[in-house]
């Protein structure tokens, strides 16, 4: 980045600037890294996650694309097969319906279909989550991608991970889906409950290891993305009531670090999965099922899931609030679970 803020002001950086740092760092160290997508160049990304990159790396490596996601997603696949390391931005996760074909039947399957002989090191970068834009611009969909094998599905929550997991995604030889949350993209590092300090230099967070964001002995909360912030808020709220919530940031859906989750549940006996994706046939059911498989029914005293209740996101604010798993809803569940058997 050309306009580095002076030291001490890094906590004031918007989250997208941390992603831009990761992109810039990787582009600087590896000439095969490219960025392409809508509005990634001249605008620097609709949230600013690629601000400054066009100026620094030029239009050959930062390519503004027409609204032709199928072609440019597939272009990412072809570039990767040809030896490049493209980062393809699909502006919002909701738009994958126009380009899923290339993500799933090409990127995610080619390594396997080729018997391991053709690598496809592409990163699909997209923004999910709810900021008031209703049914077609609010979905998370990481559960959907978890279901389709062949792609790592990485979901940052802390400021540090926005930088470190993006760098790791780019270095990964497998296709990676990187799902940001719009609400976090609109925030600054210092707004986070998970620490604002992110080094200026290289940060690479290994993909596939969950993180205990808060320790606690009564209920395990497995969550990710904005859910970690909400869960930390709820945990702080119920702590004075004597309820110890252990908050786990899953960090990636694929691979899913069940070891960390199960180790916690083995202690607490109570598992609450908090997920801003849809409730059914997704992440929350999988975490519950794997936990049950790993620990056996006897180890589980209580299990809960808090997610969008299988309806599209409604437009009006009171309705939107009612379907999202926010801090109040999490706190209420924690209280209910803590008193239960």
């Amino acid at each position, binding site marked *: 980045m050309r306009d580095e803020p002076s030291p001490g002001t890094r906590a004031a950086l918007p989250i997208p600037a941390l992603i831009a740092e990761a992109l810039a760092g990787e582009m600087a160290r590896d000439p095969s890294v490219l960025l392409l997508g*809508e*509005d990634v*160049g*001249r*605008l*620097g990304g*609709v949230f600013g996650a690629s601000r400054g990159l066009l100026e620094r790396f030029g239009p050959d490596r930062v390519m*503004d*694309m*027409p*609204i*032709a996601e*199928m*072609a440019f997603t597939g272009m990412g696949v072809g570039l990767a097969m040809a030896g490049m390391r493209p980062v393809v931005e699909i502006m919002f996760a*909701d*738009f994958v*319906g*126009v380009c899923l074909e290339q993500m799933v039947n090409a990127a995610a399957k080619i390594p396997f279909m080729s018997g391991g002989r053709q690598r496809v090191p592409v990163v699909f970068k997209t923004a999910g989550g709810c*900021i*008031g*834009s*209703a*049914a*077609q*611009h609010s979905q998370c969909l990481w559960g959907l991608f978890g279901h389709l094998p062949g792609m790592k599905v990485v979901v940052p929550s802390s400021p540090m991970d926005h930088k470190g997991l993006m760098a790791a995604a780019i270095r990964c030889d497998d296709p990676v889906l990187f799902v940001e949350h719009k609400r976090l993209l609109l925030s600054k590092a210092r707004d986070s409950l998970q620490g604002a300090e992110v080094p200026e230099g290289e940060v690479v967070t290994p993909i596939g290891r969950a993180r205990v964001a808060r320790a606690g002995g009564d209920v395990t909360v497995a969550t990710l993305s904005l859910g970690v912030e909400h869960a930390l808020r709820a945990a702080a709220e119920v702590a004075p009531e004597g309820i110890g919530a252990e908050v786990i940031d899953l960090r990636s859906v694929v691979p899913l670090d069940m070891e960390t989750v199960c180790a916690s549940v083995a202690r607490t006996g109570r598992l609450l999965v908090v997920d801003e994706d849809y409730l059914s046939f997704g992440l929350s059911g999988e975490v519950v099922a794997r936990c049950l498989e790993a620990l056996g029914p006897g180890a589980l005293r209580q299990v809960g899931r808090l997610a969008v*209740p*299988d*309806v*599209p996101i*409604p*437009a*009006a*604010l*009171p*309705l*939107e*609030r*009612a*379907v999202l798993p926010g801090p109040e809803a999490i706190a209420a569940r924690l209280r209910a679970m803590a008193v239960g058997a």
Partner: protein
Amino acid sequence: MRPNDPRILRHRRMLEMRAFDEACLEALRRGEIHGELHTGINQEAIGAAMAESLRPGDAVVSTHRNHFHALAKGVPARALLAEILERETGLCRGRGGHMHPFHPPTNFSATGIVGASLPVALGYAQAFRLRGEDHVAVGVTGDGGSHTGAFHETLVIAGARRLPLVVLVENNALAISVGFGDVSPTATVAERAGAWGARGMLVDGTDVDATAEAFAAAMEQARGGGGPVLLEATCTRARGHFEGDPDTYRTREEKRRLREERDPIALHRARLLAEGVGADALDRMAAEVRAETARLLEAVRADPLPDPAGAALYLWAEEA
């Protein structure tokens, strides 16, 4: 020129459309819209032109920038504004919001996904053909939408079946920050029409008179069984892509120039004045429209928000 002269009506329609979007802006400023908002300011001529040739049975499937198309189709302004303001009295009981207004009685709908309007419009066109109705389906998209796969596939089918479809491309030369000239393989969208056996038409979409004529011709051809028409109307976007867009990809100077030189209302006003229409008659009209819209906004603001208890309703038919 008499007050009910079609060109005066055109002018009034443009004023109404602008006032409508200004009401939306006001509501946004007051925090009464919590989601995204895309206005059509400077693109009123296209909406006003549509209004003249659309018939009740015709269908319009619009985009994220849909307010003017809805008004042109005859969607009640009250319920449309209430939907945008997320009210229970809205077209969709506050479930859809500004990008997803639906009004079955006028066959109006929209989508927030670029290009996705066109296949749905194709479906209406096919339904009209099957039932032997002389309605036309209008699928609206932007210049950005003309690059989507859906655009091609829709025109392939409409072209081969000679369906009564008008694909209306509002070419404001920008898809958010991406310039049409930077990503289009052709200088215009209209010149591509031959690839689908469609008629291509290009019109200056800031000239409401020319656009009304072009749109009427397009509708006539489609209605008469002449097959699909690809009508491109060039225009400009006066504001950011959405409210909150920093719009750093254009200079202030450029935006000022667009507002001054390519405002369809100002252009039309100048033309009417030159033709002898009185300035005070036009001013009176503008004041009237403003007052009406202000009353509309006040009325909608008094409407209730949806009850959160019903947040999961209306997914299935039995709940409707």
